Structures are given as C-alpha cells and as structure tokens.
C-alpha cells in the first residue's frame, strides 16, 4: 500500500469514529452552520464536538502548516480528506471568512507574529472575521474607497463608512481596507486588522429581500488601530486585497457545486410533479430543464476539481478564480430558479414545513446575491476578457 492509501484508510477510520451522525445530515438552515467566534453558541453538542475534534487534528484547515493550527497535509492528502468527508456527507466543521479569505492572505503577506496570533485562532474557530471592503461609493470600483487612516505614530486613526459588511454585527474582528494616501488610487490603500469591540466602531443591520439580515452598514469614528495590525507595507494593501479576492472568488464558486447530501432539486421535483408510467418526471419540460442543468452542474464539478488541482500545482492562470466565480454563481442561481419551479406553490410558503421553514424561497432569494458579492459577474467577465483572453482596452 502506498502512503496515500494508508492515509486514506486511516482517515476513513478516524472519520467513521469521530464524525457524529448528526453532522452527516444536510444543513437545514443558517443556524446549523458553525461560524465560530466569541459569540458562537453551538446549536447542538454534536456541532461543538465535531469542531473540537477536527480543530485538534488541524483539519479545519488541513493544508495549513501545523505551527499555525493547521494539519500540515500535502495537496494530495487534503484532497483525500475532502473526498472521504464527502463520502460520508460530513458537514464542514467550521465555516469562516478567516479560513477562506484572510488566512491565505496572512500566510502570504503576514508577519510571523500575525500568523502565530491570528491563524491559530482562526483554525480553532475562536475569532469570527468580517470583511470591510465595500463602501457606499466604492462597490465594483473597489479601489475608489474613501475610509481614511491617519498616521498617529504608533497607530492609525480610522474614520469612514463601510457597507454590505456581511455579519459585521456578529463578527469579532474586521479585515479592512483604508486609505493612507489620497494622491494615489490603488497605491494609497493599506490593509489593517482590528477588533470590532474597539471604541468608535458601530454597525447597523440591513434587511435583505430574503427576510434575513446578514449584513450591515459599518461606521468608524476615530477608531485607533495599532500599526502592528497593518498587514504588509503601508500603501501596498491593494496587493493583499486582490490576493484575498482571488480566494474569496474561489470560495464563492463552490456554491455552484450545490448542497451536500442527496439532490434536493431532483427529489423536490419528483415529490411535487411525480413520475409518470414510464418512470419519468410528469412535466417533460421541467424534466428537460433539470437534466440539461445537471449536465452543466456535473461538468462544473469536474471543473472545480481541475481548478483546485491546477491551483495546488501552480498551473492555474491567476485570473482563473474569476471564471470559477462567474460560472459557479450563475449556475447556483439557475439551480434555485429550478428549485422554485419544481417546488411550485409549496416552495412559495414563507414559513411552513413544506418549504422547510422557508429555507427554499429564502435561499432562492439569497442566491441572487451570488453574482453580486465578491465582485459582480460583469466585473468577472471584464477580468476574464482582459487578463485571460487579453482583449484590448
């Protein structure tokens, strides 16, 4: 047996023993998702147990170095762990912007002290992060941001407003883009980290069309940020920001892969429309739409695997996350349009059991943001056209 085969069988055995049965069922609602952080209250003992066990092995971030709370696994081992988790439909033990966005940026740009401090806390789910990028007048044109950071010797004085800050009211810390030089657009931005409990930080939730309120307006009024909390050099935050965006897009593109466990689209259609005598969905046009959608969804599954493999081997084009983000999010919107069509009037019910407590219509509405957050589809297409296809300006 090769080392990888041994690793696979040991991983399988460990997961079988340690992943609680409740953590092998599909997530039903946002409350089931573990985000960690100071305010985190586990929704069940199993959820807490699963997080603790995975964190102890470093498997919340399997491919990070052990020194920073990771598992120290190779790309091949990480892939095996993911496959074995998928095989038993194990839930993600921890969801976090720290893992998918800030972590990779700190690994590349952070100081040793920043890595030791922040990465280990991210790995254990102790600190929940939010992302302070967008401002009322700087969305797609992100580098047009105005929030200012004034040099006060050992600290910056931060003033301004962010918007669309997801989970700002639930987060402990923020990674934030601030302007340290007004004379250069992209060359005047710095990347700073600070505690949301700092004096002068306030948040105001924004209600979404889904009826949920996961994001906020965030205000900074003379917030003191120690300079040791700046990542990378002053005025070079745009490099960090772009690198992080690549990872954000990579994470968001995963939405195109759909939900774990069963196929709610197909199951839902069979439940409402029913199968005819020939064993086929009684609505032939819906059946055809679903089948053609599944072709794309499965092909995108292969694309995601290829993308990760190429990324790990350093073979991916640096702008490829834009393509993944674009395709995955458009696909996910299509999936939920079909879920609504399959669910019929059941799927319209806002709070009932038939719509799983409104999970279906609310998720449908939520997915409409997939092609806006993390850079809109139009922005991704611009990037593909310019950086991959090298079309003229």
């Amino acid at each position, binding site marked *: 047996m090769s080392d990888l085969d041994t690793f696979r069988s040991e991983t399988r055995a460990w997961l079988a023993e340690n992943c609680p049965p409740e953590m092998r069922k599909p997530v039903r609602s946002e409350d089931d998702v573990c985000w960690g952080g100071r305010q985190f209250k586990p929704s069940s003992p199993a959820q807490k147990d699963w997080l603790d066990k995975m964190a102890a092995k470093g498997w919340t971030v399997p491919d990070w170095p052990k020194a920073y709370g990771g598992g120290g696994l190779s790309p091949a081992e990480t892939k095996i762990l993911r496959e074995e988790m998928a095989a038993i439909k194990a839930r993600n033990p921890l969801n976090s912007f720290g893992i998918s966005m800030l972590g990779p940026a700190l690994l590349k740009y952070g100081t040793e002290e920043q890595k030791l401090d922040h990465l280990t806390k991210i790995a254990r789910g102790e600190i929940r992060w939010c992302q302070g990028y967008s401002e009322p007048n700087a969305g797609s044109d992100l580098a047009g941001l105005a929030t200012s950071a004034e040099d006060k010797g050992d600290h910056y004085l931060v003033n301004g407003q962010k918007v669309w800050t997801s989970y700002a009211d639930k987060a402990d810390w923020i990674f934030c883009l601030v302007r340290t030089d007004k004379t250069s657009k992209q060359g005047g931005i710095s990347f700073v980290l600070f505690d949301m409990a700092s004096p002068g930080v306030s948040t105001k939730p924004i209600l979404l069309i889904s009826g949920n309120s996961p994001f906020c307006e965030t205000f900074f009024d003379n917030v003191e940020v120690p300079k040791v909390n700046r990542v990378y050099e002053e005025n070079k935050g745009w490099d960090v920001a772009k690198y992080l965006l690549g990872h954000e897009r990579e994470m968001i593109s995963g939405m195109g892969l759909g939900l774990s466990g069963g196929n709610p689209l197909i199951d839902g259609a069979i439940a409402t429309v029913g199968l005819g005598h020939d064993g*086929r969905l009684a609505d032939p046009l819906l059946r055809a739409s679903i*089948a053609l959608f599944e*072709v794309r969804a499965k092909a995108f599954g292969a694309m995601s695997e*290829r993308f990760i493999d190429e990324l790990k081997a350093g073979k991916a084009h640096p702008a490829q996350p834009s393509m993944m983000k674009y*395709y995955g999010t458009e696909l996910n919107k299509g999936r939920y349009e079909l879920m609504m069509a399959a669910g019929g009037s059941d799927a319209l019910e806002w709070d009932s059991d038939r719509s799983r407590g409104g999970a279906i219509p609310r998720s449908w509405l939520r997915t409409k943001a997939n092609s806006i957050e993390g850079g809109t589809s139009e922005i991704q*297409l611009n990037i593909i056209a310019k950086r*991959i296809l090298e*079309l003229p300006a």
Partner: protein
Amino acid sequence: MPLYLDDDQTVLQDTIRDFVAEHAPVSHMRALRDADDKTGFSRDLWKQFAEMGFNGILIGEDQGGLGLGHVEAGVVLEEIGRNLSPSPFLSTAVAAVEALKGTAQAERWFPGIIAGETVAALAIDEGAKHRDTVAMTAERSGNGFKLTGAKRFVTHGHTADLIIVAARTGGSADDTDGITLFAVPKDAAGLTANAERLADSSLAARLEFEGVEVDADAVIGEVDAGRTPLDRLLRAGRTGASAELLGVGGGAMDMTIGYMKERKQFGTLIGSFQALQHRAAHLYSEMEVARAAVLKAQQLLDLGSDRADEAVSVAKAMTALATTLSVQEGVQMHGGIGMTDEYDIGFYMKRARVLAEMFGDANFHADRLAVAAGY
C-alpha cells in the same frame, strides 16, 4: 490522479499539435472537398499517423501498440478537431479498437490498424437520431449468421476495410440483451453502401444488409453478449467525439478572439467593445468547463471506474453545448466575412453540428443522466 495533463501527456500533446497542424490543417480538408474527393480522407495521411505510432495508441504494447489511454487518444482527437482534419482515427483507432480489445478479433485486425492499412467503420445507428436500440437481425445460418437490416450515419462506411455491426440475435429492438457485435469485411456479399456527403463535406454511408452471410468467427466477443463490447465502443466513441468537439470549439474560439484583436470598426478594435468582451468571456468559461468534463471522462475510463458512464454522458452533452455556442458566436462575431465559404469559421460550425449529433446529442445524454438518476 490530478485533473490536468501530466508531463508525458503534455509532451505528447506538443508533438501531436505540431504534426496535425503541419500535415492536416484546415486547408487539407478544404482541398479534399474542392477536389470532390470520394474517399473523404487521405490514405497517405492515415499511413503517416501510423508511422507516428498514433494508430496503436489504445492498443497494448504486447500487441504492438503504445499501450496508452483515453486521455492520450483524446489529445490526438482534440488536434484533429482543431484542424478539422478528416481522419478515420475516431472510428478506427478509438471506437473499433475498444470494441475488439480482448476478443479473438483483435489479433486479426490490430496489425492492419497499427500499420495504417485498415480503416474501420461503425454500423450502429439505425435512425436519424442515435439511440441505444438495435433492430437489425442476425439469424443463425449454417455455421455462421445472416445479417439483415439497415444502418445509417456510418462514417467511412463506403471505404472501410472493416465494418463493426451491432445486430440482434435475440429479443426485440429495445432490449439490452440479445445483441451480438460482428466484424464484417468490406467485400461481404449482399452489403451495399451508399455514401452521402454531409454538411461538413465529410462522407457517411447508409448501409443495406440483405442477408449478408458471415462466419461464426466474425462474432466480436460472445453471441448474445454484444452489449459489453458495444458499450466499450460507445463509451470510447462518445468520449472521443467529445475530445474532437473540444478541439472544434477551441479552434473556433481562438479564431474568434484573434479576429476581435485585429478587426477595427468605429476607429477601434471590436475586441474593446464590452458587449463582445462579455460574450467572449462567457464562451471561454463554457469551453473551460467542457474541457474539465472531457478530461474527467477520459481519466475515469482509463481507471475503469464505475462512474465513467455518467462522466461520458456529461462530457458529450457539455461539449456539444459549449462548442455549439463557440461556433455560433464565432460566425456572429466575424460578421459578414463569417458567412463566406472563403473564410474557415463556417467550416467549424458545420463540423460541430455533425459531431454534436454523433453518438447521441446533448438531449440524448441529458436524458440518460435523468434516467440513471431516477426521474
């Protein structure tokens, strides 16, 4: 196995890319068409393929081949697609070889295939749409069989040395069992082949079998158990056609992007118009996803995985969708010049349409996925 070409495969790809572009570029196909060539491809080129070793790519080393897999065969097919090269490679070196593999027929036909002397055709389809049904009959007669029925859309059917025929030795058209696969030599009495030129200027034959007598040893594999070699043939053929489609779609896309960088209107390059940039970027995304689907199918086939069948249908459907988009956008973005025979982009549209239909179109394969998933 990571989902990209490994170093050896990349080296092979470079060799093949150069070879096909040099010996069989689009102008080669155009010349055959203009000469109203009745073979539909160049026997000389087929010999050159043999000299390069390509024809034995899927044949084991112990039988004189290269002993490589579907990934490598796909690399050849993608370049054939990109250059619109007329070639019996798909039907012969991929589909027929897979059907014959491990059967008593292999010894008889492989040497000729490897040498570039033998061309095989696949008599599978009976209607204008590819289906998994077989109605043609093979009755026992003497120590052999008598084949009666008709087949269509048989690429190279009128010039092939070997015709692989799916016929029924039991049951009725829709049954999975009761199929037997035969290796029929081209001069069999009672077999007539009428070649039709297709939209892409390739030739496909309609074959009539009027009591064609074959010996018992013409059976590929076992009597009544032809489903097994037929499935091997179809999986290989479908995957191969997907790889060729990828080449056609990729070739058309490259031409189109190139054109966007040189054509000026309103005093500026058309490639700078955002409306066109977004469509080009979308097209690129569809082609990338299709490429991943094809490689996945090829790798799973090479691994002998039980998930290969699904991946093959995904690949065939996805490449048909993506390449159709590519050629349509190609003609549109070329404007008027895209409608002229002189310009190559139209050839890509025609070839894509033929390949999209071959071995089942996108709807056929989407339907297969649905049936497999129980809806």
